[in-house]
């Protein structure tokens, strides 16, 4: 009977993932329509961890903002501060000394090591391979300890300052870093071997979530996710910043386009990070750590700063108006660009592959969360004034 067929079509089995779900380390809401075990449609709703940082930046001065922006992301705190400092230095026409630039790059690469090792552990956990998870996180402690030794902090190292860096790399620290890198390099060889040769693990990654090069370019994915699809896109190579012109990066590409390629690209980037770190330690330029003068007020201007975060291109737009704080500041993190690929790639895959494909882009939710969608009871698409939005917030939290 036609009515039954119609009813059966309308009755979809939707699996909600999030906002609270063991697969997600941060809040996000996904809805996967499944037919048995196979995903037929996917949708996402983000914005659960929107913190109003961009708006907050407008009421803080240039120096205070650095501490605020370091807290955009808990994993890549240094790269956010680097992007901000480089942008503000550009606006103020101040240049950080070469030693400071080199230390910035060194820290960025150490941060990439910590981020990629963290990711490898999380990805292994999503695949149900907890042994690899435990081992990578144990080894990650090495680089965390190094970061703590340099700056005194494990997460928000706060190495940058406007016009330079706060901490110097002394000889004893350099020796410790080299020692730590040697240990990590040996371990990374082992992990690469596991990823490439472990048959059980390869069953969950090989040929899963294939994103051909053309599709990757169309979806505009960034970072290792793009490089695993053969798209040569890396800000460190395309538009070198800080000390990257002096320490060129070999771009890591893989043409397999599947989940395994994303694993391999990230692990190979670890080797590249070790190499760059060693090179910087060997040829660290002498000189000051901070530029001589950094103005408190910055004349009206605007700039865009692009840097390569562990997850891909991070973009900062900064506009000054001659006062002590920015007129407007905008952050675009790589996860927001990569999110569309998750929705496209999961369709047609098993439900069991969904967490793997999601983790394949190395998602970082709270840093991509932006404007809250206020679902109005009234007509759709009406524009809220600032006063009304503010009143809504007050009323909402009064309950």
């Amino acid at each position, binding site marked *: 009977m036609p009515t039954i067929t119609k009813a059966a079509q309308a009755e979809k*089995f*939707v*699996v*909600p993932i999030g906002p609270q*779900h*063991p*697969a997600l380390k941060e809040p996000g809401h996904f809805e996967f329509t*499944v037919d048995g*075990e196979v995903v037929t449609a996917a949708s996402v709703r983000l914005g659960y961890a929107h913190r109003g940082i961009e708006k907050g930046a407008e009421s803080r001065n240039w120096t205070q903002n650095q501490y605020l922006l370091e807290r955009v992301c808990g994993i890549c705190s240094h790269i956010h501060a680097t992007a901000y400092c480089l942008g503000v230095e550009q606006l103020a026409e101040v240049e950080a000394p070469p030693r400071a630039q080199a230390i910035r790059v060194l820290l960025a690469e150490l941060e990439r090591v910590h981020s990629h090792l963290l990711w490898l552990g999380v990805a*292994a*956990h*999503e*695949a*149900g*391979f*907890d*042994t690899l998870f*435990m*081992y990578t996180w*144990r080894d990650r402690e090495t680089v965390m300890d190094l970061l703590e030794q340099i700056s005194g902090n494990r997460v928000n190292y706060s190495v940058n300052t406007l016009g330079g860096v706060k901490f110097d790399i002394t000889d004893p620290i350099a020796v410790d870093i080299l020692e730590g890198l040697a240990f990590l390099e040996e371990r990374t060889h082992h992990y690469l071997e596991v990823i490439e040769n*472990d048959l*059980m*693990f390869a*069953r*969950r990654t090989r040929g899963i979530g294939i994103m051909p090069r053309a599709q990757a370019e169309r979806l505009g994915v960034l970072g290792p996710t793009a490089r695993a699809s053969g798209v040569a896109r890396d800000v460190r190579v395309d538009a070198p910043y800080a000390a990257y012109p002096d320490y060129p990066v070999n771009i890591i590409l893989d043409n397999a386009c599947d989940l395994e390629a994303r694993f391999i690209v990230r692990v190979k980037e670890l080797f590249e990070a070790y190499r760059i770190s060693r090179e910087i330690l060997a040829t660290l330029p002498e000189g000051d750590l901070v530029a001589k003068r950094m103005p408190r007020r910055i004349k009206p201007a605007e700039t865009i700063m692009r840097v390569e975060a562990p997850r891909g291109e991070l973009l900062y737009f900064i506009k000054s108006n001659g006062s002590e704080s920015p007129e407007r500041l905008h952050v675009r993190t790589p996860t927001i660009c990569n999110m569309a690929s998750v929705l496209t790639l999961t369709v047609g895959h*098993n*439900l*069991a*592959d*969904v*967490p793997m494909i999601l983790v394949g882009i190395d998602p970082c939710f709270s840093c991509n969360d932006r404007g809250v969608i206020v679902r109005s009871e009234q007509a759709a698409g009406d524009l809220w004034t600032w006063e009304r939005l503010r009143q809504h917030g007050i009323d909402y939290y009064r309950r």
Partner: protein
Amino acid sequence: MELVRNVTALLIFPGGLFLLLAGLMYQWADRKLIAQLQNRLGPRWFQPIADAIKLLANEEIVPDGVNRLLFVGLPVAALAGALTAALYVPLFGFQPAFSFTGDLIVTLYLLSLLTLCTGLAGANTRDRFSLIGAVRALTQLFAYEAPFMLALLGPAIVAGSWQISEIITTTHGSWIVLTQPIGFLVALIGLMGKLEMPPFDSPEAETEIVAGALTEYSGRGLALFKLGRAVELVIGLTLITAFYLGGVGQGALEPAFFTLKSILVLGLLALMQSLMTRLRIDQTVGLWWRFGAILVLMQWLVLIVVKMVS
């Protein structure tokens, strides 16, 4: 006298209290071994017992839209099935409390009761994770059950009997694992599938479907299911040890020796659990039917031919 013996067997030893405690201790050993293999500390020895007591004391929330009788009854049935199965197996190297012809088949069916109850419990709720978990649990049941059973029937053919007490006495002293290595391996992996241990934990894969079929369970129901699984771990290990690793003899030291062997098998299980990545449910089914079942059947063929010749 007969009555006292029966009640003791049911409530204290080997069934009942002692078995529950032993199950929890085996579970602790399993967790501790895996933790050590993964470079973690692992839980303290009383952790599983404390968990069980805490869960039993917790409030049991019965969600909307379930059949109340089934929701409360299924965990009881699952644990009862596992405890009943214990009466027919040589726990810790003691002769089975009860025995009759063909009790091997009955025991294996009683062991499946836990998975069946888990599946039904998941299907009983309206939770979407539970429903998927239930489908996966039952799919997996159909995948491993036949090869597991065939693997345990291998020693039965050698002994020429389907009565557990007779099999273990006949095979005492002869380590069948040497002549039937495939059967041993399939039985071991089958037990992992039965207990939903990694890599066969897709019915309760937390990164996909939270806690699978038991997502809606809390308090007593969850505790009973967990206890049932702990008991099944002991029974499964006992069966494999008794069938493949030299049967069960009489001597005074036999229980200690037997327990040691079963703990060694548990160590093997822990090693396999920590080495492997979780399989997708379609991969699990493929693995069992494409490799497990065929390998065991080949071994059966060899067994039957050898038996006919000799």
